[in-house]
């Protein structure tokens, strides 16, 4: 059977469609509640997707995250609190619009440009991923080694604000990946005689801890509670949107393109894409003085960017098994659990599964319009749900979810330790994304490093002898050299 027809058959089943609808509602709910992020939505979904076949499992994650990134705009506009970090870049702008009585513009532009950006990111994913997979089929361990190294480098030097702390985070992640039997000598490393540790630190409870428990702890330590920016009923949120599309086509395209590219960079996700796009929008705007006063232009560009980043992040995740952001890092864990191991062979062996993922992406974007509109309509009720009730319920869900992965309390212990560590990392300015990347890619790095060295008989020059490996290695080293030169220059400027 034609793989595209087979893919439609895989997606358009009552069970899968119901999963998509429910996860869309779940994503909208999680995104709309300040403190519950899109990554947390993914982490909370994993214990449930664990019991699903591969396609509905991936569909649940894709749909929930797309919805959550959009609905993060709702509390931004109404409470001046971003529902997810991806909305933080234009929170002030959206809230000021609401205070000026233009909540419909703030929420409508968030919704419409999220959909358009999301469709753009999906289109790039559909075109780029199979083409890249063709090339990746020829990759050897040398190319994979450098891809992983380039991913680490991007996460530390490009995505982060403090490369030194990013480096520490990454190395801690690699240290976690070292635990267990999975190494070239199959020797139990740092297991301390504990049978649970021989399989390594379980990824899903670790993610639930780092993204959900840390958030519950942060909520518990917070004192201030937000106040709604408007009490008036909303009008038509789609009014004037066509005018905005005609007025800001360049901003829409630029935001979508930058968002997709940033999303594809390992370690950098929707939040960084939104910040960069907002900055770019202001820089190239004809009315930069209006930014920060309730101007919609920045929302158009960065709203498109954060949703397009989602599609972008899936490109390296599906083709190389290298996550583009924290969400795809969790998704990769799910793909492995489902025996749908990411990599170029997935495109050859099971193309119907890949096409099914693409269809789900498009469906999620299209569903966003009616469901997003619905979410805006009930936004005020959603935002009145008391966090002090919700958070303990999420906590119990996390506990049972972590237990469910292997049916042992070991998962719960990993979850709570990871949650405490992530809480303090965030507090002390250490980014969490590089740690996740280190944990997810540590084994892959070691495997490719080891087999490359054995193939090359210990000769390091062999790492640069194949053209693509040489280019990837050169790019990695260039970023390191650029950072070292910049640090040296800024030190001289300070002392000079």
């Amino acid at each position, binding site marked *: 059977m034609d793989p595209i027809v087979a893919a439609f058959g895989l997606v358009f089943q009552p069970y899968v469609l119901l999963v998509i609808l429910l996860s869309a509602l779940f994503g909208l709910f999680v995104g709309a509640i300040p403190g519950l992020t899109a990554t947390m939505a993914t982490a909370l979904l994993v*214990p*449930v997707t*664990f*019991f699903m076949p591969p396609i509905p499992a991936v569909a649940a994650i894709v749909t929930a995250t797309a919805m959550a990134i959009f609905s993060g705009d709702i509390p931004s506009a109404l409470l001046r609190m971003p529902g997810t970090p991806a909305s933080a870049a234009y929170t002030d702008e959206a809230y000021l619009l609401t205070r000026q009585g233009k909540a419909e513009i703030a929420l409508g532009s968030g919704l419409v440009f999220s959909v358009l950006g999301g469709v753009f990111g999906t289109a790039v994913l559909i075109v780029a991923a199979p083409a890249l997979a063709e090339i990746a089929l020829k990759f050897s361990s040398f190319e994979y080694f450098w891809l992983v190294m380039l991913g680490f480098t991007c996460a530390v030097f490009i995505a982060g604000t403090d490369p*030194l*702390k990013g*480096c*520490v985070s990454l*190395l*801690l992640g*690699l*240290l976690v990946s*070292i635990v267990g039997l999975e*190494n*070239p*000598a199959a*020797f139990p*490393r*740092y297991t301390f005689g504990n049978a649970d540790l021989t399989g390594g630190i379980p990824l899903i409870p670790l993610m639930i801890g780092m993204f959900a*428990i840390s958030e*519950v*702890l942060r909520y*518990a*330590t917070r*004192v201030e509670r937000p106040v709604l920016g408007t009490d008036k009923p909303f009008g038509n949120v789609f009014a004037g949107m066509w005018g905005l599309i005609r007025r800001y086509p360049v901003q829409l395209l630029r935001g979508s393109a930058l968002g997709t590219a940033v999303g594809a960079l390992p370690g950098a996700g929707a939040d960084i894409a939104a910040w960069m796009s907002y900055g770019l929008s202001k820089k190239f705007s004809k009315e930069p003085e209006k930014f920060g006063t309730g101007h919609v232009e920045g929302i158009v560009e960065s709203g498109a960017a954060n949703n397009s980043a989602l599609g972008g992040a899936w490109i390296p995740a599906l083709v190389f098994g290298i996550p583009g952001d924290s969400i795809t890092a969790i998704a990769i864990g799910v793909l492995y659990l489902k025996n749908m191991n990411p990599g170029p062979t997935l495109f050859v062996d099971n193309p119907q599964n890949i096409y099914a993922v693409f269809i789900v992406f498009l469906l999620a974007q299209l569903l966003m319009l009616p469901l997003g509109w619905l979410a805006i309509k009930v936004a005020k009720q959603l935002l009145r749900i*008391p*966090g*002090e*009730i919700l*958070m*303990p*319920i999420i*906590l*119990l*869900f996390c*506990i*049972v*979810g972590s*237990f*469910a992965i292997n*049916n042992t*309390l070991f998962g*719960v*212990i990993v979850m*709570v330790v990871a949650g*405490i560590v992530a*809480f*303090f990392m965030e*507090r*002390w*300015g*250490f980014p969490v994304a590089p740690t996740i990347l280190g944990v997810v890619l540590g084994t892959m*790095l*070691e495997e490719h*490093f*080891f087999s490359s*060295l*054995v193939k090359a008989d*210990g000769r390091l020059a062999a790492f640069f002898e194949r053209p693509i490996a040489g280019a990837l290695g050169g790019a990695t080293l260039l970023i390191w050299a650029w950072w070292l030169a910049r640090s040296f220059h800024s030190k001289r400027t*300070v002392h000079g």
Partner: protein
Amino acid sequence: MRTVDRAVGAAIALLAVAVFVTSRAFPDVPGQKLGASTLPGIVAAGLFVCGLLLVLRSLRASRHAGQAAGGSGPAAPGAGERIAPAFGILASILLYVAASDAVGYLIVAPACLLVALRALQVGWGRAIGWSIVAALAVHLAFYKLLKVPLPWGVVPVLY
């Protein structure tokens, strides 16, 4: 943050030394000069350098800022923070880990929820009500629908 960076940097450097020393005992792959100790060795070296750089950077920042300004304290709760509820949340998780197997989900989970809800200052009546309802809903979802073997403990198997 400078004081925190200094303490964290020193702790990371110490951790790196421990990793390096312990990893020396890991075996090589037969016939190779590499093995289970290669990656831990590289990670330990990287962590050691980063730890030292963190300490040096925070010392230099302190010197530039002048001692009068001082370093900001290590993670003292600020005006917009309260610390006790976080301990309540952690206590709730530890209660589940310690007691769920022996006592059973249906008793421990509502107790955990009650601890967490009270830690977040929910009134007794609402806290008790929500604890029972939410714990039963989660049990139904995971035990009945997803077939997760949540422990019954001292409670007889009901369904």
